[in-house]
């Protein structure tokens, strides 16, 4: 499990910028995405899962928490439990749909927060340079000394289980790589002549960053951050699987994989279902990320 699965070479996106990353450019990127069937399908699937998760009470009338000792581990296809019931008699389909809420938000939220925090520090380090840069990047190096899974588990293990703690530890895991990418991209942009010209005009640093740097830097950082979402989903599911994340009886795909382990001898397909959801969302996010990267590549 590693964050380097999602390495995006920022210079590729920067070249796109240099070739003319203007409003017309983004429109052409959107057009290219619109013609890409793979990306569109994945976007559609994800949209379906997300909408189902948001509107779950209206989609599924059944209660995800209602247990029933009598109806435990019913096989697939038994009415009205289309996907069977879990080890406590709760409807699987309902729990899978409701599970989307926690699994997806715990996947996306840490990346969003890490984007804000890591992006801020990375851009600051890249633009200011000098001692500030050294200080920030050295601190990030300390976190980089840990493999991401180990860091997440150690932090979660120390803080204890629970949604908030998991969010905190995952955010901390994702801040260093985003910070690194931000710093690298910002340093490159900072070296361009038009930034020098802006400095020579006497504008304040904040104005220069706002007008000249941010517009050119946020694109590549954002693309990199979105490629981390699939990693985050798997990592948060993994934490819940270990009992370090979401606590029962909340429905969450990783946690469900854990509690259903006892069922693999009785109803193996059932036991594997939550993982299928994780797999589908992860692969969709990855394909979309690849699609966006390809659409941004002007040379292709």
């Amino acid at each position, binding site marked *: *499990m*590693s964050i*380097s*699965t999602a390495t995006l070479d920022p210079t590729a996106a920067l070249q796109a910028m240099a070739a003319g990353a203007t409003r017309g450019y983004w429109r052409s990127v959107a057009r290219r995405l619109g013609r890409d069937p793979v990306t569109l399908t994945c976007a559609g699937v994800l949209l379906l899962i997300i909408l189902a998760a948001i509107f779950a009470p209206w989609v599924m009338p059944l209660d995800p928490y209602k247990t029933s000792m009598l109806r435990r581990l019913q096989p697939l296809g038994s009415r009205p439990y289309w996907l069977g019931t879990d080890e406590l008699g709760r409807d699987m389909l309902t729990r899978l749909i409701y599970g989307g809420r926690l699994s997806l938000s715990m996947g996306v939220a840490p990346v969003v927060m890490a984007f804000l925090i890591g992006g801020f520090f990375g851009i600051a380090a890249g633009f200011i340079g000098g001692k500030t840069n050294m200080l920030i990047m*050295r*601190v990030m*190096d*300390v*976190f980089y*000394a*840990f*493999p*991401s*899974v*180990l860091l997440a*588990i*150690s*932090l979660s*293990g*120390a*803080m*204890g289980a629970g949604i908030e703690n998991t969010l905190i530890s995952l955010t901390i895991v994702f801040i260093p790589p985003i910070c690194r990418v931000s710093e690298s991209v910002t340093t490159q942009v900072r070296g361009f002549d038009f930034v020098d010209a802006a400095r020579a005009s006497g504008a304040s640093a904040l104005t220069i960053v706002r007008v000249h740097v941010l517009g050119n830097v946020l694109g590549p950082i954002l693309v990199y951050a979105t490629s981390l979402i*699939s990693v985050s989903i*798997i990592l948060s*599911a*993994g934490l819940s*699987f*270990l*009992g*370090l994340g979401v606590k029962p009886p909340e429905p969450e795909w*990783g946690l469900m*994989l854990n509690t259903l*382990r006892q069922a*693999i*001898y009785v109803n*193996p397909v059932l*036991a*594997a279902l*939550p*993982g299928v959801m*994780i*797999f589908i969302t*992860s*692969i969709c996010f*990855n*394909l979309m990320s*690849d699609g966006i990267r390809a659409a941004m590549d002007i040379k292709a």
Partner: protein
Amino acid sequence: MLLYALRRLIYLVPVAFGVSLLVFSLVHLAPGDAISAIVPPDAPQEVIDKLKEYYGFDKPLPVQYFRWLMVTLSGDFGTSIGTGRPVAEEVGSAFVNTLILAVAAILLSSILAIILGTAAAYAKTRIVDRLVTSIALVGVSVPHFWLAIVLVIIFAVELGVLPPMGIGPENATGWRLDGPHLAHMVLPTIALSVIPLGVMTRTIRSTVKEVLSMEFVTAMQAKGLRHSQILFHVMKNAAPTCLAVMGLQAGNLIGGSILIETVFAWPGTGFLLNSAIFRRDLPILQGTTLVLAGFFMLLNLAVDIIQTTLDPRIKRL
């Protein structure tokens, strides 16, 4: 080059300090008293105080940190609260088990990745390329602990040909090179190798493709070199990047094996970490994290040096 290695090593020292600080503070992130994990809730106050003094919890934090640092650097990682055995011993034997699994997984994934990645880069038809890219994508996207469960379901539960858990037959704690032990290793190795397989295939494919597009390859073809000779040169050029990624993945395997080890009850560092967390065995938690992080740092350093040595384009300051 030696100078460069020395520089990087010295560079590591402040980072190592930071790491030790982080690991030390893990204990204090924990809710509740560390003592309350050891003693029963109705223990008399003097016992609690005596234990506090014994473990040094009554001193101010910086003092505690330095005492811990000095003790740890001397090799004494403390004693496990759960088993009472020295932490170094427990972590040591667990580390060996993890290493066995990691080496097997890296070998498997590297060999496959080289074959697949190179084939995809050389492929004339889009089908081969598409196939390999899809395999790599699956490798990167699949939740490996779920794949582990699926493998157990297929091979252990349904087909019954491979054991579902353990490092060896009959609750073994160590590994030997023999049939039954190898059988126990098959499923965990496969599960562990999917992610490195995915990442490395992608990297190898794109690196080899990039090298193939360089003009010196065309020049070699024009000179009439045999395919095998050209391949050799191509691999030489692709080697630094690919080795770097391999090294990184190996590091991630060792540090991130906890999920697979939990599924298979493989007594490695990951499994140890897991049980330490639930027993609130903080010395083990600290010791394991420290060892794993330290190993990861040294591995990264080695990868860095190897890459710098192999790639003459990188400036060695």
